[in-house]
Protein backbone atom coordinates (compact mmCIF):
# COMPACT_ATOMS: atom_id res chain seq x y z
CA UNK A 1 0.00 0.00 0.00
CA UNK A 2 1.33 3.42 -0.93
CA UNK A 3 1.17 6.20 1.61
CA UNK A 4 -1.04 8.23 -0.71
CA UNK A 5 -3.46 5.30 -0.90
CA UNK A 6 -4.02 4.97 2.85
CA UNK A 7 -7.82 5.08 3.13
CA UNK A 8 -9.46 7.98 4.92
CA UNK A 9 -13.05 6.79 4.96
CA UNK A 10 -15.68 7.76 7.47
CA UNK A 11 -15.96 5.31 10.36
CA UNK A 12 -16.99 4.85 13.96
CA UNK A 13 -13.52 5.99 14.97
CA UNK A 14 -14.25 9.51 13.86
CA UNK A 15 -16.85 10.17 16.54
CA UNK A 16 -14.25 9.33 19.19
CA UNK A 17 -11.68 11.55 17.52
CA UNK A 18 -9.41 8.62 17.04
CA UNK A 19 -7.07 7.72 14.21
CA UNK A 20 -5.37 4.43 13.69
CA UNK A 21 -1.78 3.89 12.63
CA UNK A 22 -0.93 1.78 9.63
CA UNK A 23 2.18 1.00 7.62
CA UNK A 24 2.65 2.14 4.03
CA UNK A 25 5.34 2.83 1.45
CA UNK A 26 6.36 6.42 0.63
CA UNK A 27 7.42 7.85 -2.79
CA UNK A 28 10.96 6.48 -2.38
CA UNK A 29 9.78 2.97 -1.64
CA UNK A 30 10.65 3.28 2.06
CA UNK A 31 8.29 2.07 4.74
CA UNK A 32 6.71 4.69 6.95
CA UNK A 33 3.62 5.07 9.11
CA UNK A 34 0.43 6.95 8.29
CA UNK A 35 -2.80 7.71 10.08
CA UNK A 36 -6.10 6.42 8.83
CA UNK A 37 -9.57 7.56 9.86
CA UNK A 38 -11.16 4.33 8.68
CA UNK A 39 -11.71 1.99 5.80
CA UNK A 40 -15.12 1.04 4.40
CA UNK A 41 -14.63 -2.75 4.12
CA UNK A 42 -13.94 -3.06 7.82
CA UNK A 43 -16.47 -0.43 8.88
CA UNK A 44 -19.15 -2.49 7.16
CA UNK A 45 -17.88 -5.64 8.86
CA UNK A 46 -17.98 -3.94 12.25
CA UNK A 47 -21.43 -2.45 11.63
CA UNK A 48 -22.73 -5.88 10.69
CA UNK A 49 -21.26 -7.37 13.85
CA UNK A 50 -22.89 -4.65 15.97
CA UNK A 51 -26.19 -5.15 14.20
CA UNK A 52 -25.92 -8.87 14.86
CA UNK A 53 -25.49 -8.18 18.57
CA UNK A 54 -28.44 -5.77 18.63
CA UNK A 55 -30.55 -8.42 17.00
CA UNK A 56 -29.50 -10.97 19.59
CA UNK A 57 -30.41 -8.53 22.36
CA UNK A 58 -33.83 -7.77 20.84
CA UNK A 59 -34.44 -11.46 20.32
CA UNK A 60 -33.52 -12.29 23.92
CA UNK A 61 -35.79 -9.51 25.18
CA UNK A 62 -38.69 -10.97 23.24
CA UNK A 63 -38.06 -14.40 24.67
CA UNK A 64 -37.95 -12.99 28.19
CA UNK A 65 -41.32 -11.34 27.61
CA UNK A 66 -42.74 -14.64 26.34
CA UNK A 67 -41.37 -16.37 29.40
CA UNK A 68 -39.10 -18.64 27.38
CA UNK A 69 -35.89 -17.46 28.98
CA UNK A 70 -34.79 -15.51 32.05
CA UNK A 71 -33.52 -11.90 32.07
CA UNK A 72 -30.02 -13.27 32.71
CA UNK A 73 -29.77 -14.25 29.07
CA UNK A 74 -30.95 -10.81 27.99
CA UNK A 75 -28.32 -9.04 30.08
CA UNK A 76 -25.67 -11.47 28.90
CA UNK A 77 -26.38 -10.53 25.27
CA UNK A 78 -26.59 -6.84 26.19
CA UNK A 79 -23.05 -7.03 27.58
CA UNK A 80 -21.80 -8.76 24.41
CA UNK A 81 -21.05 -11.89 26.44
CA UNK A 82 -21.54 -15.55 25.71
CA UNK A 83 -22.01 -18.41 28.14
CA UNK A 84 -18.33 -19.12 28.96
CA UNK A 85 -17.62 -15.41 29.51
CA UNK A 86 -20.63 -14.87 31.77
CA UNK A 87 -19.86 -18.05 33.72
CA UNK A 88 -16.31 -16.90 34.41
CA UNK A 89 -17.47 -13.44 35.50
CA UNK A 90 -20.02 -14.71 38.01
CA UNK A 91 -17.84 -17.65 39.04
CA UNK A 92 -20.58 -20.25 38.44
CA UNK A 93 -20.27 -23.35 36.28
CA UNK A 94 -21.57 -22.99 32.73
CA UNK A 95 -24.21 -25.68 33.08
CA UNK A 96 -25.62 -23.94 36.16
CA UNK A 97 -25.70 -20.56 34.41
CA UNK A 98 -27.48 -22.22 31.52
CA UNK A 99 -30.01 -23.66 33.96
CA UNK A 100 -30.58 -20.18 35.37
CA UNK A 101 -31.83 -19.19 31.91
CA UNK A 102 -34.98 -21.25 32.62
CA UNK A 103 -37.64 -18.88 33.99
CA UNK A 104 -38.81 -21.49 36.50
CA UNK A 105 -35.33 -21.91 37.94
CA UNK A 106 -34.63 -18.19 37.79
CA UNK A 107 -37.64 -17.34 39.97
CA UNK A 108 -36.37 -19.65 42.69
CA UNK A 109 -32.84 -18.21 42.79
CA UNK A 110 -31.59 -16.91 46.14
CA UNK A 111 -30.80 -13.25 46.57
CA UNK A 112 -27.17 -14.21 47.03
CA UNK A 113 -27.00 -15.74 43.56
CA UNK A 114 -29.00 -12.92 42.03
CA UNK A 115 -26.61 -10.44 43.61
CA UNK A 116 -23.70 -12.12 41.81
CA UNK A 117 -25.38 -11.58 38.46
CA UNK A 118 -26.50 -8.06 39.36
CA UNK A 119 -22.93 -7.09 40.24
CA UNK A 120 -21.55 -8.36 36.96
CA UNK A 121 -24.21 -6.48 34.99
CA UNK A 122 -23.87 -3.42 37.25
CA UNK A 123 -27.58 -3.25 38.05
CA UNK A 124 -29.81 -3.80 41.09
CA UNK A 125 -31.54 -7.10 41.82
CA UNK A 126 -34.81 -5.34 41.14
CA UNK A 127 -33.67 -4.38 37.64
CA UNK A 128 -32.46 -7.91 37.06
CA UNK A 129 -35.78 -9.41 38.03
CA UNK A 130 -37.91 -7.01 36.11
CA UNK A 131 -36.89 -5.94 32.62
CA UNK A 132 -39.34 -3.02 32.67
CA UNK A 133 -37.27 -1.40 35.40
CA UNK A 134 -34.20 -1.55 33.23
CA UNK A 135 -33.43 1.30 30.89
Amino acid sequence: MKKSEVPQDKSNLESANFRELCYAVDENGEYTTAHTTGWDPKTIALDNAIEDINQRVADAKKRVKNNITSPIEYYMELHKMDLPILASYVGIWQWRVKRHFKPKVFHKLSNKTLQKYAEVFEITIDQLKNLDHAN
Partner: protein
Amino acid sequence: MQINFTHHQSAHCENGVVSNLMKHHGFNVSEPMVFGIGSGLLFCYIPFLKVNHAPAITYRAMPGFIFKRFAKRVGIKIEREKFKDPKKAKARLDENLINNNPVGLQVGVYNLTYFPDEYRFHFNAHNLVVYGKEKDTYLISDPVMETVTTLTAKELEKVRFAKGALPPKGHIYYPTNFPKELNLEKAILKGIKHTCRDMLAPMPIIGVKGIRFTAKQIRKWPKKLGTKKANHYLGQIVRMQEEIGTGGGGFRYIFAAFLQESSKILNNPKLTELAKEMTKIGDLWRDFAVDASRIYKNRGAKTDGYNEVATQLEAIADKEEVFFKALKKAI
Protein backbone atom coordinates in the same frame (compact mmCIF):
# COMPACT_ATOMS: atom_id res chain seq x y z
CA MET B 1 3.81 11.56 40.33
CA GLN B 2 4.71 11.18 36.72
CA ILE B 3 7.55 9.33 35.03
CA ASN B 4 9.19 11.08 32.13
CA PHE B 5 7.88 8.70 29.49
CA THR B 6 7.46 9.41 25.79
CA HIS B 7 4.34 8.04 24.13
CA HIS B 8 4.69 6.81 20.54
CA GLN B 9 1.63 5.58 18.74
CA SER B 10 1.95 2.15 17.16
CA ALA B 11 -0.26 -0.09 15.08
CA HIS B 12 -0.32 -3.02 17.45
CA CYS B 13 -0.50 -2.94 21.24
CA GLU B 14 2.01 -5.60 22.19
CA ASN B 15 4.78 -4.46 19.81
CA GLY B 16 4.00 -0.91 20.80
CA VAL B 17 4.37 -1.48 24.53
CA VAL B 18 7.67 -3.31 24.03
CA SER B 19 8.99 -0.71 21.61
CA ASN B 20 7.96 2.17 23.89
CA LEU B 21 9.48 0.55 26.99
CA MET B 22 12.72 -0.15 25.10
CA LYS B 23 12.87 3.43 23.91
CA HIS B 24 12.32 4.61 27.47
CA HIS B 25 15.38 2.62 28.54
CA GLY B 26 17.49 4.13 25.80
CA PHE B 27 17.27 1.48 23.07
CA ASN B 28 15.77 2.73 19.86
CA VAL B 29 13.86 -0.32 18.64
CA SER B 30 11.04 0.20 16.16
CA GLU B 31 7.67 -1.52 16.23
CA PRO B 32 8.34 -3.65 13.11
CA MET B 33 11.68 -4.74 14.64
CA VAL B 34 9.91 -6.01 17.77
CA PHE B 35 7.27 -7.72 15.66
CA GLY B 36 9.80 -9.41 13.36
CA ILE B 37 12.27 -10.53 16.01
CA GLY B 38 9.40 -11.79 18.12
CA SER B 39 8.10 -13.77 15.10
CA GLY B 40 4.69 -12.15 15.36
CA LEU B 41 3.47 -13.08 11.88
CA LEU B 42 1.24 -16.10 11.67
CA PHE B 43 -1.97 -17.41 10.23
CA CYS B 44 -4.15 -19.71 12.24
CA TYR B 45 -7.78 -20.73 11.77
CA ILE B 46 -9.50 -22.64 14.57
CA PRO B 47 -12.97 -23.72 13.40
CA PHE B 48 -14.05 -25.25 16.72
CA LEU B 49 -13.11 -22.25 18.86
CA LYS B 50 -15.77 -19.55 18.62
CA VAL B 51 -15.13 -15.86 19.22
CA ASN B 52 -18.13 -13.53 18.96
CA HIS B 53 -20.12 -16.48 17.60
CA ALA B 54 -17.76 -17.08 14.66
CA PRO B 55 -14.68 -19.28 14.23
CA ALA B 56 -11.50 -17.91 15.74
CA ILE B 57 -8.94 -16.69 13.27
CA THR B 58 -5.68 -14.96 13.95
CA TYR B 59 -2.96 -13.29 11.93
CA ARG B 60 -0.45 -13.11 14.79
CA ALA B 61 1.29 -15.17 17.42
CA MET B 62 -0.35 -15.84 20.79
CA PRO B 63 -0.52 -12.80 23.07
CA GLY B 64 2.65 -12.46 25.10
CA PHE B 65 4.75 -14.62 22.76
CA ILE B 66 6.11 -11.69 20.78
CA PHE B 67 7.58 -10.02 23.86
CA LYS B 68 8.85 -13.31 25.28
CA ARG B 69 10.67 -14.26 22.09
CA PHE B 70 11.96 -10.74 21.54
CA ALA B 71 13.39 -10.57 25.07
CA LYS B 72 15.08 -13.94 24.75
CA ARG B 73 16.54 -13.20 21.33
CA VAL B 74 18.03 -9.80 22.11
CA GLY B 75 19.07 -10.82 25.62
CA ILE B 76 16.95 -8.68 27.94
CA LYS B 77 15.31 -9.98 31.09
CA ILE B 78 11.66 -9.38 31.86
CA GLU B 79 10.04 -9.46 35.25
CA ARG B 80 6.44 -10.60 35.09
CA GLU B 81 3.84 -11.36 37.69
CA LYS B 82 0.16 -12.34 37.90
CA PHE B 83 -2.08 -11.90 40.91
CA LYS B 84 -5.11 -13.39 42.56
CA ASP B 85 -5.68 -10.44 44.83
CA PRO B 86 -6.46 -7.09 43.12
CA LYS B 87 -5.06 -5.21 46.14
CA LYS B 88 -1.68 -6.86 45.78
CA ALA B 89 -1.74 -6.16 42.05
CA LYS B 90 -2.36 -2.49 42.74
CA ALA B 91 0.35 -2.35 45.43
CA ARG B 92 2.93 -3.82 43.03
CA LEU B 93 1.97 -1.31 40.35
CA ASP B 94 2.23 1.64 42.76
CA GLU B 95 5.59 0.39 44.02
CA ASN B 96 6.98 0.43 40.50
CA LEU B 97 5.63 3.87 39.77
CA ILE B 98 7.27 5.24 42.93
CA ASN B 99 10.54 3.66 41.78
CA ASN B 100 10.21 5.57 38.53
CA ASN B 101 9.63 2.43 36.51
CA PRO B 102 6.93 2.50 33.81
CA VAL B 103 5.32 -0.93 33.47
CA GLY B 104 3.36 -2.87 30.89
CA LEU B 105 -0.03 -4.31 31.80
CA GLN B 106 -2.25 -6.89 30.12
CA VAL B 107 -5.86 -5.73 30.20
CA GLY B 108 -9.33 -6.57 28.90
CA VAL B 109 -10.78 -4.26 26.27
CA TYR B 110 -14.46 -4.41 27.25
CA ASN B 111 -14.18 -1.90 30.08
CA LEU B 112 -11.60 0.43 28.57
CA THR B 113 -13.60 3.64 28.85
CA TYR B 114 -11.51 5.63 26.39
CA PHE B 115 -12.21 3.18 23.53
CA PRO B 116 -15.11 3.91 21.18
CA ASP B 117 -18.12 1.84 22.24
CA GLU B 118 -18.14 -0.18 19.04
CA TYR B 119 -14.68 -1.50 19.74
CA ARG B 120 -15.36 -2.71 23.25
CA PHE B 121 -15.51 -6.48 22.97
CA HIS B 122 -14.51 -9.15 25.45
CA PHE B 123 -10.93 -9.40 24.31
CA ASN B 124 -8.42 -9.86 27.10
CA ALA B 125 -5.05 -9.57 25.44
CA HIS B 126 -4.69 -5.84 25.09
CA ASN B 127 -1.53 -4.15 26.39
CA LEU B 128 -0.76 -0.69 27.72
CA VAL B 129 1.84 1.17 29.76
CA VAL B 130 1.20 2.93 33.07
CA TYR B 131 3.64 5.79 33.54
CA GLY B 132 2.31 7.70 36.52
CA LYS B 133 -0.39 8.37 39.04
CA GLU B 134 -2.10 11.54 40.16
CA LYS B 135 -4.26 11.10 43.24
CA ASP B 136 -6.59 8.28 42.24
CA THR B 137 -6.02 8.48 38.52
CA TYR B 138 -3.46 6.49 36.58
CA LEU B 139 -1.64 7.95 33.61
CA ILE B 140 -1.92 5.57 30.69
CA SER B 141 0.04 5.28 27.49
CA ASP B 142 -2.01 3.00 25.26
CA PRO B 143 0.10 2.43 22.14
CA VAL B 144 -2.83 2.26 19.73
CA MET B 145 -4.08 5.70 20.85
CA GLU B 146 -2.73 8.89 19.33
CA THR B 147 -2.12 10.53 22.70
CA VAL B 148 -1.83 9.52 26.33
CA THR B 149 -4.94 9.00 28.41
CA THR B 150 -6.06 8.17 31.98
CA LEU B 151 -8.02 5.60 33.96
CA THR B 152 -9.27 5.80 37.53
CA ALA B 153 -8.02 3.22 40.02
CA LYS B 154 -11.40 1.50 39.90
CA GLU B 155 -11.49 1.39 36.11
CA LEU B 156 -7.94 0.07 35.95
CA GLU B 157 -8.72 -2.69 38.43
CA LYS B 158 -11.68 -3.74 36.33
CA VAL B 159 -9.70 -4.09 33.12
CA ARG B 160 -6.79 -5.78 34.88
CA PHE B 161 -9.13 -8.40 36.30
CA ALA B 162 -11.36 -8.92 33.29
CA LYS B 163 -12.70 -12.47 32.94
CA GLY B 164 -13.31 -14.81 30.03
CA ALA B 165 -10.76 -16.36 27.68
CA LEU B 166 -7.11 -15.52 28.50
CA PRO B 167 -7.89 -13.55 31.68
CA PRO B 168 -5.11 -11.04 32.43
CA LYS B 169 -5.14 -11.69 36.19
CA GLY B 170 -3.46 -8.37 36.82
CA HIS B 171 -0.50 -9.40 34.64
CA ILE B 172 2.28 -6.82 35.05
CA TYR B 173 5.61 -6.89 33.21
CA TYR B 174 8.70 -4.76 32.67
CA PRO B 175 12.24 -5.25 31.42
CA THR B 176 14.87 -5.41 34.16
CA ASN B 177 18.25 -6.39 32.73
CA PHE B 178 19.71 -5.04 29.53
CA PRO B 179 22.84 -6.10 27.67
CA LYS B 180 25.38 -3.33 26.95
CA GLU B 181 24.53 -3.45 23.31
CA LEU B 182 21.64 -5.14 21.58
CA ASN B 183 22.77 -7.85 19.22
CA LEU B 184 20.08 -7.38 16.60
CA GLU B 185 21.69 -9.37 13.73
CA LYS B 186 21.39 -12.77 15.36
CA ALA B 187 17.99 -11.97 16.77
CA ILE B 188 16.67 -10.98 13.33
CA LEU B 189 17.86 -14.24 11.79
CA LYS B 190 16.22 -16.24 14.54
CA GLY B 191 13.00 -14.29 14.19
CA ILE B 192 12.84 -14.78 10.42
CA LYS B 193 13.63 -18.50 10.61
CA HIS B 194 10.92 -19.02 13.18
CA THR B 195 8.33 -17.16 11.08
CA CYS B 196 9.22 -19.21 7.98
CA ARG B 197 8.86 -22.40 10.01
CA ASP B 198 5.46 -21.32 11.34
CA MET B 199 4.10 -20.25 7.98
CA LEU B 200 5.28 -23.43 6.22
CA ALA B 201 4.27 -25.71 9.08
CA PRO B 202 2.88 -29.09 8.00
CA MET B 203 -0.29 -28.52 10.03
CA PRO B 204 -3.70 -28.14 8.41
CA ILE B 205 -4.82 -25.02 10.27
CA ILE B 206 -1.56 -23.07 10.53
CA GLY B 207 0.30 -20.84 8.07
CA VAL B 208 -0.03 -21.32 4.32
CA LYS B 209 -1.95 -24.57 4.80
CA GLY B 210 -4.29 -22.77 7.20
CA ILE B 211 -5.07 -20.16 4.53
CA ARG B 212 -5.93 -22.91 2.03
CA PHE B 213 -8.07 -24.64 4.64
CA THR B 214 -9.95 -21.40 5.33
CA ALA B 215 -10.58 -20.95 1.60
CA LYS B 216 -12.02 -24.45 1.43
CA GLN B 217 -14.32 -23.72 4.36
CA ILE B 218 -15.50 -20.44 2.82
CA ARG B 219 -16.69 -22.31 -0.27
CA LYS B 220 -18.88 -24.48 1.96
CA TRP B 221 -20.29 -21.71 4.15
CA PRO B 222 -23.23 -20.35 2.11
CA LYS B 223 -24.75 -23.81 1.60
CA LYS B 224 -23.92 -25.15 5.02
CA LEU B 225 -24.75 -22.13 7.16
CA GLY B 226 -27.06 -19.93 5.13
CA THR B 227 -26.24 -16.44 3.92
CA LYS B 228 -26.61 -14.65 7.24
CA LYS B 229 -24.18 -16.77 9.20
CA ALA B 230 -21.80 -17.09 6.27
CA ASN B 231 -21.66 -13.30 6.03
CA HIS B 232 -21.05 -13.02 9.74
CA TYR B 233 -18.14 -15.49 9.52
CA LEU B 234 -16.67 -13.70 6.52
CA GLY B 235 -16.98 -10.36 8.33
CA GLN B 236 -15.07 -11.79 11.25
CA ILE B 237 -12.14 -12.74 8.98
CA VAL B 238 -11.94 -9.20 7.62
CA ARG B 239 -12.20 -7.70 11.09
CA MET B 240 -9.40 -9.84 12.47
CA GLN B 241 -7.31 -8.92 9.44
CA GLU B 242 -7.86 -5.17 9.50
CA GLU B 243 -9.14 -4.16 12.94
CA ILE B 244 -7.05 -1.90 15.16
CA GLY B 245 -3.63 -3.33 15.55
CA THR B 246 -2.63 -5.08 12.37
CA GLY B 247 -1.20 -2.04 10.59
CA GLY B 248 -3.14 -3.17 7.51
CA GLY B 249 -3.22 -6.39 5.49
CA GLY B 250 -3.17 -8.70 8.49
CA PHE B 251 0.30 -7.56 9.70
CA ARG B 252 1.83 -8.12 6.24
CA TYR B 253 2.82 -4.45 5.92
CA ILE B 254 4.49 -4.38 9.34
CA PHE B 255 6.38 -7.53 8.39
CA ALA B 256 7.49 -5.94 5.12
CA ALA B 257 8.70 -2.89 7.07
CA PHE B 258 10.66 -5.24 9.30
CA LEU B 259 12.31 -6.93 6.32
CA GLN B 260 13.23 -3.56 4.85
CA GLU B 261 14.82 -2.42 8.10
CA SER B 262 16.60 -5.76 8.53
CA SER B 263 18.01 -5.59 5.03
CA LYS B 264 20.01 -2.51 6.07
CA ILE B 265 21.15 -3.98 9.39
CA LEU B 266 22.22 -7.30 7.87
CA ASN B 267 23.45 -5.67 4.69
CA ASN B 268 21.39 -8.12 2.68
CA PRO B 269 19.79 -6.54 -0.43
CA LYS B 270 17.70 -9.66 -1.03
CA LEU B 271 15.56 -8.73 1.93
CA THR B 272 14.66 -5.38 0.33
CA GLU B 273 13.37 -7.26 -2.69
CA LEU B 274 11.41 -9.63 -0.49
CA ALA B 275 9.97 -6.68 1.43
CA LYS B 276 8.57 -5.39 -1.86
CA GLU B 277 7.09 -8.80 -2.57
CA MET B 278 5.50 -8.89 0.90
CA THR B 279 3.97 -5.45 0.29
CA LYS B 280 2.35 -6.84 -2.85
CA ILE B 281 0.99 -9.80 -0.88
CA GLY B 282 -0.36 -7.33 1.70
CA ASP B 283 -2.14 -5.52 -1.14
CA LEU B 284 -3.71 -8.83 -2.17
CA TRP B 285 -5.03 -9.28 1.37
CA ARG B 286 -6.52 -5.79 1.14
CA ASP B 287 -8.16 -6.70 -2.19
CA PHE B 288 -9.58 -9.80 -0.55
CA ALA B 289 -11.08 -7.61 2.21
CA VAL B 290 -12.65 -5.27 -0.36
CA ASP B 291 -14.25 -8.14 -2.29
CA ALA B 292 -15.38 -9.91 0.88
CA SER B 293 -17.02 -6.68 2.08
CA ARG B 294 -18.96 -6.50 -1.20
CA ILE B 295 -20.48 -9.86 -0.34
CA TYR B 296 -21.61 -9.01 3.17
CA LYS B 297 -22.73 -5.55 2.14
CA ASN B 298 -25.42 -6.90 -0.19
CA ARG B 299 -27.13 -9.40 2.01
CA GLY B 300 -28.63 -11.42 -0.83
CA ALA B 301 -25.26 -12.45 -2.18
CA LYS B 302 -24.78 -15.20 -4.70
CA THR B 303 -22.71 -18.26 -3.83
CA ASP B 304 -20.37 -17.20 -6.62
CA GLY B 305 -19.02 -14.44 -4.45
CA TYR B 306 -17.82 -16.89 -1.84
CA ASN B 307 -16.09 -19.01 -4.44
CA GLU B 308 -14.40 -15.93 -5.83
CA VAL B 309 -12.95 -14.76 -2.51
CA ALA B 310 -11.93 -18.33 -1.72
CA THR B 311 -10.00 -18.42 -4.99
CA GLN B 312 -8.37 -15.14 -4.00
CA LEU B 313 -7.25 -16.66 -0.69
CA GLU B 314 -5.82 -19.69 -2.47
CA ALA B 315 -3.82 -17.40 -4.74
CA ILE B 316 -2.50 -15.61 -1.65
CA ALA B 317 -1.57 -18.94 -0.07
CA ASP B 318 0.40 -19.92 -3.18
CA LYS B 319 2.25 -16.60 -3.19
CA GLU B 320 3.04 -16.83 0.51
CA GLU B 321 4.34 -20.36 0.14
CA VAL B 322 6.80 -19.26 -2.55
CA PHE B 323 7.64 -16.18 -0.51
CA PHE B 324 8.52 -17.93 2.74
CA LYS B 325 10.55 -20.57 0.92
CA ALA B 326 12.52 -17.79 -0.75
CA LEU B 327 12.90 -15.95 2.56
CA LYS B 328 14.29 -19.06 4.20
CA LYS B 329 16.93 -19.29 1.48
CA ALA B 330 17.75 -15.58 1.55
CA ILE B 331 19.17 -15.61 5.06
